[in-house]
C-alpha cells in the first residue's frame, strides 16, 4: 500500500501529443507507470509511441479503464480538461500545467471535491512511488524504493532533496509535489494523513516555502495527529519581504507566512527543521534509524 498511486494506477495523459506530454509519457512508462491512453481532441486513431490517443477522456476511460489523469493541457484550456476528467469518473488528477488563473482553480477544486476527485497541483511535479507508479514529471533518476515519504511545495528543489536522500542510501515510499500556486488541490494538511496511514512510510520529509500559511497549517496537524518523525525545510529564509520570488506562491506579506513563523510552528510541532537542503539527508537517516528502533 503506497500513497494514492500503485501498480493498479492506469494513467490517461491529457495533452499527450504536445512536447511535454510526449516526453513525460515516455518517462512515466520508463518508471513503470501504466500509461494506458492519451487524449487530444481531434487526434483519435493516432498513437504516441504506442499509446492510443482518444478525442475525449470518457472514450479513453471506456476503452482502457484509465483511473488517473495527468494533465499537460495549456493554462487557458486546463479548467475544461480537469472538468472533463472529473465527469469521466477519474478520481485522481495530477495537473502539471503552470499559470492557471486561480479563479479557474477555485472552480476546479470545488467541483472536483464535490465529485470525490483529488487534484494534485497545479504547477506541480506530481506524485511518484518508486517501483510502482509515477504520475507527473519528477525525474526518474532521483528515486529508489525505500521508506521515506516526501511532501513538497517545490519542484526542482524536491528533485534535489529526493536525490540527496538516495545518495545517503535511503529510498522513498511516496513523494508528492504539491505545487506552489496560491490554490492547490492537495495541501500539506491533505497529504499528511495519507502518510500517517501508510505502513510503508517510516519518516517524512516536508519541504515548504515562504508565503501563505500551508506550512503552519501542516504543523498544526503534525502536532496533534502525526506520529512519525518529520524533517522539514523552508526555502526563502533570506528573501526580503514583499518581493515575489519566482512564482505566485512565494511572496511574504504583512508579517505572515515568513520563514520564521513556519520554522517556529514546525519546531513546536516536534519536527526537526533543517537550515539548508544539504542537511536533510543526514537528519532523515537519523530519523529513520530512530523510527525503526
Amino acid at each position, binding site marked *: 500500500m503506497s500513497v494514492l498511486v500503485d501498480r493498479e494506477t492506469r494513467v490517461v495523459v491529457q495533452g499527450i501529443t504536445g512536447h511535454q506530454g510526449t516526453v513525460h509519457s515516455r518517462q512515466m512508462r520508463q518508471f513503470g507507470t501504466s500509461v494506458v491512453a492519451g487524449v487530444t481532441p481531434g487526434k483519435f486513431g493516432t498513437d504516441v509511441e504506442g499509446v492510443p490517443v482518444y478525442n475525449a477522456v470518457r472514450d479513453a476511460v471506456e476503452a482502457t479503464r484509465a483511473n488517473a489523469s495527468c494533465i499537460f493541457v495549456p493554462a487557458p484550456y486546463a479548467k475544461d480538461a480537469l472538468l472533463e476528467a472529473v465527469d469521466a469518473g477519474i478520481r485522481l488528477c495530477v495537473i502539471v500545467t503552470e499559470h492557471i488563473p486561480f479563479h479557474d482553480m477555485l472552480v476546479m477544486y470545488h467541483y472536483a471535491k464535490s465529485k470525490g476527485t483529488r487534484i494534485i497541483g497545479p504547477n506541480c511535479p506530481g506524485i511518484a512511488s518508486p517501483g510502482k507508479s509515477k504520475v507527473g514529471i519528477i525525474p526518474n533518476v532521483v528515486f529508489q524504493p525505500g521508506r521515506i515519504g516526501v511532501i513538497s511545495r517545490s*519542484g526542482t528543489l524536491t528533485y534535489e532533496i529526493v536525490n540527496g536522500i538516495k545518495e545517503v542510501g535511503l529510498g522513498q515510499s511516496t513523494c508528492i509535489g504539491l505545487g506552489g500556486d496560491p490554490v492547490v488541490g492537495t495541501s500539506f494538511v491533505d497529504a499528511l494523513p495519507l502518510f500517517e496511514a501508510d505502513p510503508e512510510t517510516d519518516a517524512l520529509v516536508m519541504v515548504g516555502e515562504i508565503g501563505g500559511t500551508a506550512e503552519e497549517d501542516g504543523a498544526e496537524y503534525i502536532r496533534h495527529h502525526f506520529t512519525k518523525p518529520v524533517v522539514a525545510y523552508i526555502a526563502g529564509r533570506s528573501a526580503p519581504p514583499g518581493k515575489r520570488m519566482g512564482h505566485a506562491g512565494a511572496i511574504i506579506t504583512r508579517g505572515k507566512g515568513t520563514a520564521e513563523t513556519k520554522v517556529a510552528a514546525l519546531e513546536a510541532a516536534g519536527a526537526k527543521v533543517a537550515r539548508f537542503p544539504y542537511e536533510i539527508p543526514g537528519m532523515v537517516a537519523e530519523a529513520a534509524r530512530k523510527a525503526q528502533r
Partner: protein
Amino acid sequence: MVKLAEWQGKNVFRKYGVPLPRGTIARSADEAEAAVREGKVPLPCVIKAQVLAGGRGKGGAVRFANSAEEARSAAGAILAMEFKGEKVREVLLEEKLPIGRELYLSLTLDRTRRLPLLIASPHGGVEIESVADSEIDRQTVDPFPGLTGYEKRRVAQVLGVSGSAARSLDRLLDSLWNVFQHEDAELVEINPLAAVGDGLVALDAKVIIEDDAAFRHPEYAEVRDDRTELEEIAREKEIAFVQLDGNIGVIANGAGLTMATLDVLKELGGAPGVFLDLGGTDDPKKVTEAFLLMARAKPASVFLNIFGGVTRCDTVAKGLVEAMGQVPASERFPLIARIRGNNEKEGIEILRSAGVTSVFDLRASAQAAVDAARGRP
C-alpha cells in the same frame, strides 16, 4: 500582478456600476484647469496623485480646490512630485462630496479554504491593518452560487447600513463580486466606501489583476509599463527576474531551488544580487538566454544552480559554454556552475575543460561563488 492606479481601478468600477464621484483624469495643470472650466469636475473638488503607494493624504499628494485656478496650481504641484520614489504622471480630479461615515469593503482570496473572502468593516478611511480584528468581518463566498442575499445582508448589518443605503449596498456588492470574478482580480478594495446622503460612493479603488489571467485580459497589457529594460526582456522570455542589493548573480530553475540557493549564499557571507528563475524547466535554450541576460546585469560573479530533469546535463553544459563565448571579454565574470541530474558527470567534464568551476556539492559551489565575488565591486 497588475496593480491598477486609482483612476484605472475606477474605470473598471464604472463599467460594473459601482457608484463613484464625478471626475476626470489630467496629465498637466492645463488639462486640470480645463476639466474644471468645462464642468467635467464640479467644485469644490479634490485632486489626487495617481500613484500605487499608500499614505497620499499625509504625504501632500491629495489637495483641494474651490476654483479652476486653484485646481490648476494644485494639479501642477502634485504632478511635479515624486511620491515615495514614484513619478506622478496623472492626477485624478473629483467632486468633493459631503461624506458621512467611512466604511471598508474588499474581496480577495483565502488560500487555506480555497475560497473568495469578503471583508467588511465599519471603520474605513484608515489602513485596514490598523483596525482591530474584532471590528473586521470576514466571510468566504462559494464561487458556485456566487454572492448570496444572506451574505450581503450580513455585510449591511456589519456596516450598520439600512433603508435605501442598504439597497445601494446590495447592488454595489454585486458589482464588486462581478469585478472580482470577471476581471480575474486578486484584490478588489474600496477604502473608504463613503455614506453620501442616503447612498454609498466608492471614494477610492484598489484593484490588482492576476498575471496568470493575462491571456483573457489583453486590455491590461499596457498597464505594465514600470519595468526596467532587463525585467521586460526577462518577462518576454518567461524568466523570473528579481533585483536584490548584492553583487552575486544567481541563475536557478524553480522558485524553491532559487530561494534555497540564495539562503545558502547569504549564510556563507555572500550578497545575492540579480537572480533569474527559469521556472521548472531545464531547457538549454532558456539556460543560455538567462546567462546572456545575466551578463548584462554586470554581476561580480555568477552562481548557476540547475537541476536537470528532462534535459541531459551535458546538453545544458554545451549550451552554457557556447553562450560564454558570446559575452564580450570586457563583460566576463567568474562563473560557478552546478548542474545535477541525468549525465551529470559528462556535464561537469565539459564545464571544467572550458575553465568553469564546477562541483556537485551545493555548499562548496556556493562558497566558490562567494569567494569569486569578494574583492569585486
